[in-house]
């Protein structure tokens, strides 16, 4: 692949997906596309769900765009991107992450591009209320650090890699005290260090490991969800201990096409800085 194309492929993908989005507006039920997680896939805040992003039905194209800001004691993470759902079957997403690590090295910003795809395999999380079967999807996230030198310097074996995951999502109408409940279990095969911002693989472990990711949310009303997520992570780098991510979130859909998610995130030790807790704010346009 020549370097010009490599440089251009991300903006090209964004432009292509934006065009696909303008083509049609979706008619799925309010909030059933979820939010976009921090790596760009349709889901919660940190966990991809089996739902296909946007409001597109089996005959429509839908999608969403998001911007997320996470702020902890020592770090800031900005993430933004676009996801397009084709026929409630295939989701394609692009996202950019910018991780401000000035507290470790003054002026240091780590940037990563993520291209994702998710395919619904079976099930209907919303309508299959007479069945225990969840909606199940499989997905990939290809991640590429724009500066490969930094991941390598911290002991990672590579600056780019691909995560594979399978997600099962189920909505239980009137599941808890009359409120609708959403449950999600994702299993991710990954060798990413801090989602990939510190590269992939390390001296402790260089191969992929299987990590579970959970989400549980209660819909207080049709447009307000209160939930929590927990994401187990590998711990590949001897120099930089890595811990699980978790969050408690409130997602509000004041309008069909607009959502705000506010979360309290516990991100553990990152790049040698322990107990990184902070706020997570995400805004999303859904189509």
């Amino acid at each position, binding site marked *: 692949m020549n370097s010009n194309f490599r440089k251009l492929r991300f903006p090209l993908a964004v432009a292509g997906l934006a065009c696909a989005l303008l083509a049609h507006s*979706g*008619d*799925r*039920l*309010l909030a059933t596309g979820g939010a976009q997680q921090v790596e760009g896939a349709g889901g919660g805040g940190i966990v991809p769900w089996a739902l296909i992003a946007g409001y597109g*039905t*089996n*005959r*429509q194209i839908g999608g969403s765009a998001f911007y997320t800001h996470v702020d902890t004691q020592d770090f800031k993470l900005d993430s933004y991107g676009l996801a397009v759902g084709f026929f*409630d079957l295939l989701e394609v997403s692009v996202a950019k992450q910018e991780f401000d690590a000035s507290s470790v090295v003054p002026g240091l910003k780590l940037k990563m591009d993520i291209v994702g795809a998710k395919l619904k395999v079976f099930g*209907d999380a*919303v*309508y*299959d*209320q*007479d*069945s225990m079967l969840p909606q199940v999807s499989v997905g990939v996230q290809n991640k590429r650090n724009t500066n490969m030198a930094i991941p390598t310097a911290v002991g990672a074996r590579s600056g780019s890699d691909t995560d594979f995951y399978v997600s099962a999502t189920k909505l239980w*109408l*009137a599941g*808890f*005290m*009359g*409120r*609708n409940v959403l449950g999600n279990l994702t299993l991710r095969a990954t060798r990413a260090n801090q989602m990939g911002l510190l590269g992939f693989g390390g001296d402790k472990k260089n191969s992929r490991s299987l990590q579970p990711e*959970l989400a549980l949310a209660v819909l207080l*009303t*049709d447009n307000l969800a209160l939930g*929590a997520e*927990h994401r*187990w992570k590998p711990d590949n780098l001897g120099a930089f201990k890595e*811990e*699980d991510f*978790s969050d408690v979130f409130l997602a509000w859909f004041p309008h069909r096409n607009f959502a705000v998610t506010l979360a309290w995130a*516990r991100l553990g030790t990152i790049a040698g800085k322990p107990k990184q807790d902070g706020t997570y704010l995400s805004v999303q346009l859904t189509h």
Partner: protein
Amino acid sequence: MKPLFQRWACVLAGALLAACAASPSAKPALYERLGGEPVVTRVVNETIDRAATDPRTSRSFKDVKLARVKEKIVEQICSLAGGGCKYTGDPMDKVHKGLQNTEAEMNLVVQWLRDALDRAGVRESEKNELLRLLAPMKRDIVTM
């Protein structure tokens, strides 16, 4: 990692206990809690009137006796929600055969049903219970 998982487990166990404690043994049937025939009739009338007039869904209601459709839907909800009625209409797959209803059309009608339930003052929990009973009908209604 362990303590957090334990905390989750505690929250979940606590929630389940609360749910068990909160459900009284002699809860009235859903139909009664919805408000019985007056409320259900009002909700069904509003929903079907909207569906029959909105250009996005009206095609499926052409040449249909709306009064009968409404009556049969009320009867079916009464039957499903423990109101003691017997549904005397045709099976849902037969009723919708050949209409080629899309998911988009179905979702619109569901949204109007939710709106009508909200307007009628039906509580969140009763609304969700009713939707849970009706949701599997999508398989018989949507064929496209």
